[in-house]
């Protein structure tokens, strides 16, 4: 391998990259599309739904109910997206690139994912956060940094900062996933009712009253839920209503959840894309080089999650700098076999 510039090392076609046609290029397109197309669309949809909800006068109760259900729905869609991507990296189809699972419909993907996250161990959360991949052979977690073939080049200081970032991020991501899982449990019935038949309860023809009421009159005490739906499917719980919050509270809670999920999606996609974008392609899809990258480990974190020293050391995350192996250190018969080397050795170049 020969340096093309400070940031790019020429690739001469004999390294052990995954298949360009079936893995690298499709993954690149999928992930870039997530970043450039899907996330902006999802964020627009949440913002638009919230703005619409806030614009509807309180006395237009039917319209307001639908607008509130839309805020919930647009927000929960992002949680469903996250479930698909999270599942794809947590339980990929054996022998296939991760993205294939993310595009494969499953009736229970979202429910299974969100009902299970609170039981995840650190390694599983670490896979979600991008610190580990799944070994294609046994699905076991494999450290992402081990994928870059090199003897350990990190100093003790770097290793300490990286490990602190990893632990802090896992703790934070676990908290986020548990919170989002609760939100999914709370809001997904409304999401289903909205998208499958707009099953908002017509308030003009109904009243929520105490259980003992037998006849509703003008004097009967009525209760006013923030949102009320006929549930999807035939079950004993034929309707669902929320009496704990105001409509504005529901809108804020649901949209907050959707926006948090969108930030998670962003971080999830960015961390995977950093690896894919380490490969530089020509316009016809041939690999021309390997680009220095920084794996954005710390985008999950807030300022107080690490010490100032660790932030100064790690910045945005470990920086992978590809270096040509000094020829004098390589036996002639090894040179062809070890034509490309990596050196994830420069964490301190992080931008912070």
């Amino acid at each position, binding site marked *: 391998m020969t340096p093309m510039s400070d940031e790019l090392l020429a690739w001469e076609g004999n390294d052990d990259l995954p298949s360009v046609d079936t893995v*690298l290029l499709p993954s690149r*397109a*999928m992930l870039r599309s997530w970043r450039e197309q899907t996330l902006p*669309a999802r964020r627009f949809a949440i913002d638009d739904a919230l703005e619409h909800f806030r614009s509807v006068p309180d006395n237009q109760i039917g319209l307001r109910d639908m607008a509130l259900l839309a805020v919930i729905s647009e927000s929960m869609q992002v949680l469903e997206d996250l479930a698909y991507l999270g599942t794809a990296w947590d339980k990929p189809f054996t022998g296939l690139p991760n993205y294939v699972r993310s595009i494969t*419909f499953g009736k229970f993907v979202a429910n299974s994912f969100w009902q299970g996250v609170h039981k995840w161990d650190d390694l599983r959360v670490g896979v979600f956060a991008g610190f580990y991949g799944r070994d294609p052979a046994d699905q076991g977690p494999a450290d992402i940094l081990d994928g870059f073939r090199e003897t350990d080049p990190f100093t003790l200081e770097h290793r300490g900062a990286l490990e602190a970032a990893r632990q802090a991020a896992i703790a934070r991501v676990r908290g986020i996933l548990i919170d989002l899982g609760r939100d999914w449990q709370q809001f997904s019935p409304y999401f289903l009712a909205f998208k499958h038949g*707009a099953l908002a309860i017509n308030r003009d023809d109904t009243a929520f009253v105490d259980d003992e009421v037998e006849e509703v009159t003008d004097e009967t005490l009525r209760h006013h839920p923030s949102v009320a739906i006929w549930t999807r499917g*035939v079950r004993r719980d034929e309707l669902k209503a929320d009496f704990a919050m105001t409509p504005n509270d529901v809108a804020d809670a649901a949209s907050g959840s959707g926006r948090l999920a969108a930030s998670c999606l962003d971080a999830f996609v960015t961390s995977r894309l950093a690896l894919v974008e380490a490969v530089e392609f020509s316009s016809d899809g041939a690999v021309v080089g390997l680009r220095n990258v920084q794996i954005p480990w710390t985008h999950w974190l807030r300022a107080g999650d690490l010490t100032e020293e660790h932030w100064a050391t790690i910045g945005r995350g470990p920086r992978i700098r590809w270096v040509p192996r000094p020829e004098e250190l390589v036996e002639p018969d090894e040179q062809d076999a070890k034509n490309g080397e990596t050196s994830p050795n420069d964490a301190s170049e992080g931008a912070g």
Partner: protein
Amino acid sequence: VKLAITLEHHDHAYVERRGGWELLTHLRGAEARVEFRRQVIRRAWDAFDQAGAADESQARVTGLGLIVLQRALLAAEDLGGVLHALGGPDPWVRVRTASIADMDAAYERAVRDTETVVEESFRLAVANDLHDEGVTPDEVDALMRLRGRLMTRWERMLITATRLWLDHRDVAKASMHGFPIVAGNEVFGPPSAGKLAAAARPSTHGRFAVAVNSRQHGRDIQTTPTTVRLDDDAVAGYRRDGRMAARLYGEICAMQAQSIMSGHKAGIPLGLIKPGSERDIQLIEAAVERTNDDADE
């Protein structure tokens, strides 16, 4: 706390026979849902249009186009659900359990046997119903001409809604289940998306995306890339057809609710009376006045 239905009706058993109180309240509440669906389709269209005019990135614009399509298809799903519900017994259960396959079947039946579906959905009276109400032969003829105009309009709307649903429901569903839809410029690059691009076709009309919905069959994963047009004309069509589907849904719900509330098994709405001849308008107005007087007595 429990839910009480506060609506009153002179014949409880009739309401139950027509699908029950829950269905009736749901049908009566359609107007707000229609207004909502139409407003949000328009809002997504405005954002799409503005992003295109501002020359924002292609992927950003196609993403907004997909939101237009998704919102249009939600309106079409409302309509498909009610068509399915009214096409069989236990309509309230059918509203709440309609599957994609159910709605496909309802839409397919709508284009195969449009007249029956329109009569069933709109409770549209036939000549004998009118004779039974004491309407004169001339008045019946005038009402049948009005009925013909209504049939033509609703047939056209049903066919348009059916095409919207059957052509795009997979993409819209995908946009709600993990969004396996790749921006066109990312599929065809440069660089292109390898095998993914090899299996897909670009649109010849401009902006587009490629839906790559996949299904698992045993150990096989089957992916059929579908090109989704997201050029201005196509997205304008999604907006138009989605808003129309919402309107049609609202008209069906209103006709059904009116029919249940009035206790009449069928009727002919007078919304399109104006394009008729002066003579027809006079005859119909006379018939309406007389039958209303009879009802009052």
